[in-house]
């Protein structure tokens, strides 16, 4: 067997250098995409967990409030609960920062002026000793008495090094629209805190955090040290003693909740990343099938000389394994490089959509590499199995007659067609099950069945395209076009594999184009309907924080009194945890919404529903919230609040595409009552008819005064911002699809090169009996173009089916979004043209090689 491998397999793989390289590259790309997305997902979320662990230190139980935290007087209650060995109060918030002194920015320019996003960690240095936080080998924050000085801070060594900061330097943060300049009092030694948020942690004394970062009298968490094994009892005791809105949980619960929130996003990316790998298995199948066909006589000879069926099977399986294994190994390296590229985009999306700050450094993740390699190798083995079995069935005496390269066993195209149709029916069944019985995983199963169904239809479809094209092309383009078209149908099984590979890649591109196009039209319509305020006002830096930030009441009053302002809607929001996943609760002015806003409701009239909510103290919930938390129009929502459990009637369900985390809207007065918080986070201004928006905006900016930095955003800019976040979210998706198409194109190049080699005698004979080199080139090009057309056309149909599935089932189940189908015929025409042109370009090299091949050389092959 060793000799067989060394003498036969390896030499063949080496001799077919270009094709072997293309196949290996295809597998490498497939594995790379899978690994990179997994690494990026894990890095983004894993780093969140790691950061939580790093900040938590040795704490094993924590008491946490929602966005606004809780009354600091509860600290004593926690500390004095029996079983709590030690307790440390914590304030944790986010802010934009810059090295050096203050700089004035407004209108969304804070990213330029304050380029860093940092986590501000307020600690009580006297409570720190038992927690060994940021200690490294030293005493940690426990001995950081210098933090007690006014506006003093400590930063991790890694962060100080990155920003070039040293003790005594200044670091300025944006807090509630004002600049707060801190002085570096200590650079923390390299240690665990370096791993939290890439080291972008600014540690201040608790009092500093409370005073300068909008937490007067409030805490975000109390971390506790509880004896091992005692956690359940202490957790229960704490829960009994504390108000309803607080959570008592292990620190890791936060990572789990975030993981639950972004699960759909991660799962979708992971599913998409498998597509390129799926396409690459077709390449392995094709490569091993070609090897079997080319070497049929050799296999027969081997069998005659005593090679067993088992050894033949093993030989071809190992060839597939070699291609897959080398490709997978290469893919691991390539995947790491891709991950570095995609991580930024994944992290940005998590921040934009879910307000989760994710780090952008790749951690060591051997499991992802292991799984990527295993999937690459397993798919290669699976792809090689059928052709290897075919090879093993070769009888010891195989006559290679003229035309012997036509597949000896004719593919039962009709049976395959019936199988394909049956699979598509099963896909429909799975989709119906997913939607009717709320079985989300059935949605992905249905998508997989769609791809399998169309794959089974591919050989028959290829034969049909060939049959239809031969007379049509013959009449319109001459004999060489007819010969090219006929070559397509010569080997429907092997050509069908290529067509299937293209179909899968194109199908996903079309599906995504239709889904994203529909989604974008839906979001655009929603944005136009919903964002009706003329001017949106918030504090600079608010967007990274989104929490607990409050506008000075005098500023709000001045804005309300400005001439030209007809109505002001004010907003106050918080993040809550429900059913072990975060959701957003916001207070808005229902009366202003009713009279000026245009909230888009799933059912019913917004004016009437808002009026009813105002009258009954009801809430409106977003579509995603309703789906995730099984709430329905007319039902009751039970919400934990700082004032106890609130039972609120649901007066309506509204469309919301800003996040799938889910949102609850209630009237400001309700919010102020339950959250005991009448403050204002941001404003939407409705102008009086005829008022000059630019003038009002100038007045709003002037009303802020010299110290308060605000953003006053016209609704057009806000709409554009929403759409740009939307577009950015799908950037990775497109990247994944481009790679899947690239893998398919590699397959076409490899396959055409193989086919030209396979038909070298035939080409020589054609040249001998009078075919010009240009005619030979056209024959191969027509074949390439038709493979592209057959794949793309089938892909368009499959893509439409997948788009329906994505829109009507998968998005609805996983994200809770209603997307209105919007089909742009240009998507299909463009994709078809693009793939045919790409296939022609891919076919040019092999076609030219065929045309240039000396006729004598070809004829000498016999």
């Amino acid at each position, binding site marked *: 067997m060793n000799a067989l491998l060394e003498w036969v397999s390896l030499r063949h793989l080496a001799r077919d250098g270009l094709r072997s390289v293309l196949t290996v590259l295809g597998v490498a790309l497939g594995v790379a995409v899978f690994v990179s997305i997994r690494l990026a997902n894990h890095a983004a979320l894993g780093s969140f967990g790691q950061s939580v662990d790093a900040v938590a230190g040795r704490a094993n139980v924590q008491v946490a409030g929602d966005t606004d935290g809780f009354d600091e007087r509860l600290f004593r209650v926690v500390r004095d609960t029996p079983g709590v060995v030690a307790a440390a109060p914590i304030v944790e918030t986010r802010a934009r920062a810059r090295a050096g002194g203050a700089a004035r920015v407004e209108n969304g320019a804070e990213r330029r002026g304050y380029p860093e996003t940092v986590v501000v960690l307020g600690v009580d240095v006297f409570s720190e000793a038992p927690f060994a936080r940021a200690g490294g080998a030293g005493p940690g924050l426990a001995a950081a008495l210098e933090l007690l000085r006014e506006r003093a801070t400590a930063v991790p060594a890694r962060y100080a090094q990155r920003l070039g900061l040293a003790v005594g330097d200044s670091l300025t943060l944006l807090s509630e629209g004002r600049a707060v300049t801190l002085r570096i009092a200590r650079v923390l030694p390299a240690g665990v805190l370096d791993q939290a948020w890439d080291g972008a942690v600014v540690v201040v004394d608790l009092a500093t955090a409370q005073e300068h970062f909008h937490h007067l009298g409030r805490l975000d968490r109390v971390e506790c040290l509880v004896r091992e094994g005692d956690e359940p009892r202490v957790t229960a005791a704490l829960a009994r003693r504390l108000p309803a809105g607080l959570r008592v949980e292990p620190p890791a619960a936060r990572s789990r909740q975030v993981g639950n929130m972004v699960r759909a996003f991660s799962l979708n990316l992971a599913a998409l990343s498998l597509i390129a790998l799926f396409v690459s298995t077709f390449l392995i199948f094709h490569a091993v099938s070609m090897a079997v066909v080319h070497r049929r006589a050799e296999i027969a000879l081997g069998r005659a000389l005593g090679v067993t069926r088992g050894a033949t099977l093993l030989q071809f399986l190992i060839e597939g394994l070699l291609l897959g294994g080398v490709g997978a190994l290469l893919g691991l390296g390539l995947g790491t490089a891709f991950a570095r590229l995609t991580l930024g985009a994944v992290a940005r999306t998590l921040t934009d959509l879910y307000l989760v700050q994710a780090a952008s450094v790749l951690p060591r993740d051997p499991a992802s590499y292991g799984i990527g390699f295993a999937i690459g190798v397993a798919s290669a083995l699976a792809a090689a199995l059928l052709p290897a079995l075919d090879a093993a069935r070769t009888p010891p005496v195989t006559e290679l*007659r*003229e*035309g*012997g*390269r*036509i597949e000896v066993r004719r593919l039962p195209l009709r049976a395959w067609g019936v199988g394909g149709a049956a699979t598509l029916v099963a896909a429909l069944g799975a989709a119906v099950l997913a939607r009717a019985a709320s079985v989300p995983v059935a949605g992905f199963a249905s998508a997989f069945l769609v791809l399998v169904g169309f794959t089974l239809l591919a050989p028959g479809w290829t034969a049909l395209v060939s049959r239809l094209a031969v007379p049509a092309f*013959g009449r319109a383009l*001459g*004999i*060489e076009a007819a*010969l090219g078209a*006929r*070559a397509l*149908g*010569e080997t429907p099984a092997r050509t069908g594999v290529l067509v299937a590979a293209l179909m899968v890649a194109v199908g996903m591109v079309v599906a995504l184009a239709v889904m994203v196009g529909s989604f974008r039209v839906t979001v655009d319509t929603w944005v136009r309907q919903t964002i009706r305020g003329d001017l949106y006002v918030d504090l600079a830096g608010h967007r990274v924080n989104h929490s607990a930030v409050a506008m000075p009441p005098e500023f709000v009053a001045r804005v309300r009194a400005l001439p030209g302002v007809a109505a002001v809607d004010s907003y106050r929001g918080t993040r809550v945890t429900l059913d072990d996943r975060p959701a957003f609760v916001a207070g808005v002015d229902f009366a202003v919404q009713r009279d000026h806003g245009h909230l888009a409701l799933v059912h019913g009239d917004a004016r009437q529903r808002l009026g009813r909510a105002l009258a009954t103290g009801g809430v409106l919930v977003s579509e995603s919230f309703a789906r995730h938390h099984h709430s329905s129009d007319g039902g009751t929502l039970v919400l934990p609040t700082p004032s106890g459990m609130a039972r609120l009637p649901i007066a309506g369900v509204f469309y919301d595409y800003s996040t799938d985390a889910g949102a609850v809207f209630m009237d400001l007065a309700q919010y102020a009552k339950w959250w005991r918080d009448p403050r204002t986070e941001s404003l939407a201004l409705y102008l009086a008819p005829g008022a000059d928006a630019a003038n009002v905006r100038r007045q709003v900016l002037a009303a802020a005064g010299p110290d308060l930095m605000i953003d006053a955003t016209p609704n057009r800019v806000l709409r554009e911002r929403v759409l740009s976040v939307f577009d950015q979210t799908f950037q990775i998706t497109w990247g994944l699809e481009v790679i899947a198409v690239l893998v398919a194109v590699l397959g076409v190049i490899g396959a055409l090169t193989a086919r030209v080699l396979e038909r070298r*005698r*035939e080409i*020589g*004979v*054609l*040249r*001998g*009996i*009078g*075919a*010009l*080199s*240009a*005619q030979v080139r056209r024959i191969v090009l027509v074949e390439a173009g038709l493979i592209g057309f057959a794949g793309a056309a089938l892909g368009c149909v499959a893509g439409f089916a997948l788009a329906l599935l994505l829109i009507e089932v998968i998005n609805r189940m996983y994200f809770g979004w209603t997307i209105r189908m919007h089909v742009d015929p240009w998507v299909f025409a463009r994709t078809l043209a693009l793939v045919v042109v790409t296939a022609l370009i891919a076919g040019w090299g092999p076609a030219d090689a065929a045309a240039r091949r*000396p*006729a*004598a050389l070809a*004829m*000498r092959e*016999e």
Partner: protein
Amino acid sequence: MSAALRVERLVKWYPGAGAPVHAVDDMTFEVEAGTCVALMGRSGSGKSTLLHLIAGVDRPTSGRIEVAGRDLATLDDDALTRLRRTSVGLVYQFFHLMPTLSARENVALPLLLGGRARREALARADARLAEVGLEGRRDARPHTLSGGEMQRVALARALIHEPHLVLADEPTGNLDSRAAQQVLRLLRDLGARHGAAVVLVTHSAEAAAIATRVLEMRDGRIVADHAAPAVPDATDGAPAAFEGAPAIAPAAPRVP
């Protein structure tokens, strides 16, 4: 009679491990229209190389080849291809039919590649297939034909455009003796009937027997030039020795 093929001082050598290998070494000969010349010699004597040079699919190192009065050295690749379309017919040992085409499509292919209308090309293909006794198998694919049938289809293809010159490279090398005899007779008779010169590469004395003249080759040189030996079996008067083959018209010119 005019020369359908003229070869003058033809040389073809290939770079070897040490000295160059002379596949064709200073050959000169002519073949008249309507005659059949057999090129005989052992394997490696340069027969096939000479055939490729005459067909214009390979270029000589030096010397001159004229086919139907055209000097091949003056023709570029496309012009050589066009010359083959109009003036040269090729028959190979392994038949080399297009596996995806039917018998009549294979025969019509040279005309179709030359831009002839499909209807006309197929009509002429049918006529040629009838001449080789295969009118009943015109829609058959190559892999369903016997070796002899495949070579008869190849012969019909070589003759469809009524070439000045037919080059046959070991046309019976892959056939049993009965089929070989049928093909040889057809090659001789149809070549003569269409006025084509036939150059037959073979190492079989039986095959060479149908020729007017035999050129014996060794190491790329002509070492003997003589008339063909006596035909070992009685072929005259038995042109339709196989079932379904048509009788060659009595008026057709015969090889003396």
